[in-house]
């Protein structure tokens, strides 16, 4: 990518949910707005738009980030996965657990919660630690404390937290 004059449109390609998507956008556009407003993928939600709620959580190159705090321009060529990309299988099991455990009320935070749940499972299998992990060496058990800490980047305004923990516990138990 070459330099642009101030806020001229930039050309970039995002590999969104497995397909190359070409965009011409102003460098001010966040990844979240690119997904929602330019690509019509409204699964990622805009809660705070300031990195404080998690509603906009997506995976970039397989890792969860807040799409509202990163510029689309910085992601030329990156693989982006939104909730629309979850395989029927993944979506079914995580969604089913959220339904079964009544892990939402309004549902606005839910797509972010589900993307975080998917990422949490990957992070657990990679052996990632958290602030509440008792020992940094050796295997890590996914206790409720661990789930709460690892899901703490997703705020739920309706306060469905105990049920979200139960849903994550159930999905983790299956996988």
């Amino acid at each position, binding site marked *: 990518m070459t330099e642009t004059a101030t806020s001229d449109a930039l050309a970039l390609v995002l590999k969104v949910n497995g397909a190359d998507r070409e965009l011409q956008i102003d*460098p*001010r556009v966040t990844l979240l707005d690119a997904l929602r407003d330019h690509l019509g993928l409204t699964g990622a939600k805009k809660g705070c738009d*300031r*990195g404080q709620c998690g509603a906009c959580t997506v995976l*970039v190159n397989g890792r*969860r980030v807040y799409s509202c705090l990163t510029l689309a321009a910085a992601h030329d060529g990156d693989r982006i996965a939104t909730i629309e990309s979850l395989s029927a299988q993944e979506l079914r099991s995580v969604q089913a657990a959220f339904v079964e455990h009544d892990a939402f009320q309004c549902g606005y935070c839910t797509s972010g919660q589900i993307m975080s749940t998917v990422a949490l499972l990957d992070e657990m299998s990679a052996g990632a*630690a958290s602030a509440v992990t008792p020992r*940094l060496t050796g295997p890590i058990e996914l206790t409720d404390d661990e789930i709460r800490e690892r899901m703490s980047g997703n*705020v739920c305004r309706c306060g469905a937290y105990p049920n979200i923990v139960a849903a994550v516990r159930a999905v983790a138990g299956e996988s």
Partner: protein
Amino acid sequence: MLPFSYTRAADGDAAIAAGALPGAKFLAGGTNLVDLMKGGVEAPQALIDISRLPLAGISALQQGGVRIGALARNSDTADHPVIRSRYPLLSRALLSGATPQLRNAATVGGNILQRTRCHYFYDPGFQMCNKRNPGSGCAALEGHNRMHALFGASAHCVATHPSDMCVALSALDALVRLRSAAGERAVAMLDFHRLPGDEPHIETRLVPGELIVSVDLPASSFVKHCAYLKVRDRASFAFALVSVAIALDVREGLIHEARIAMGGVAHKPWRAFGAEQLLVGAPVDAAPFAEAAGAAVEGARALKHNAFKIDLARRAVLRALRIAQS
């Protein structure tokens, strides 16, 4: 956000040249800079994206130290096997900060240079802020200041540095390696951030266009006896009211060396050197921890709303010392 140009730096030299131009800013993870741009606090004319420069590695140094590339993500640093096993204090401090989503984006260099969370700084609706608007005054001095500094503040600024990672780096005597057109140099973490004095808008020793390239840690003798304790308004996803990093080098039951650093209490990570000295030579199972904790808050100066933080800091130091003891 005001308009700006966006350039991805091809290499370090290109970044340094572009970053030295007036109005230019480096973009790493963007988690602080993009937020501040949205709020109208920062308005760079040119963003130089350094996030893909090859500075994300973590590698062993001779004599047992480790070099952490400035673009290593906070999550990768916290989870690196060498950091987890030899610098657990740093892992703990990193994992205490922000959230998994933020740590996946945030870099080591960006974390060091993140700006204060003082509400008056963050909200351009307030005209007064000597950081945003040098010479305008400090709204926090007489305003809501329960989060603000206990040490090293001035009549011009009472803001704190919000980083958790930097508190551990300061306890571990890290070196920050910098690169500019003039060459490379290294600055101790302890000296990297400045106290506010009468120029609170000048926050670090970095000169325009200078790039942080790595953070170097000396060989660690603090693996067994260390602790990071963070006290905040909620259990997770909040900045520290007070945080404490403790590192004790214990040899044959005696404290050979002690490090005590506090976060959330000053314009920079705050080392309690006097308190550290009280512990040297003491048996670790009968060390004068209470005296050291008292000494750690000596010289603290309360503002209108933050006096509670003095006792909180003292108790946090005491509790963290006890955790590190065992």
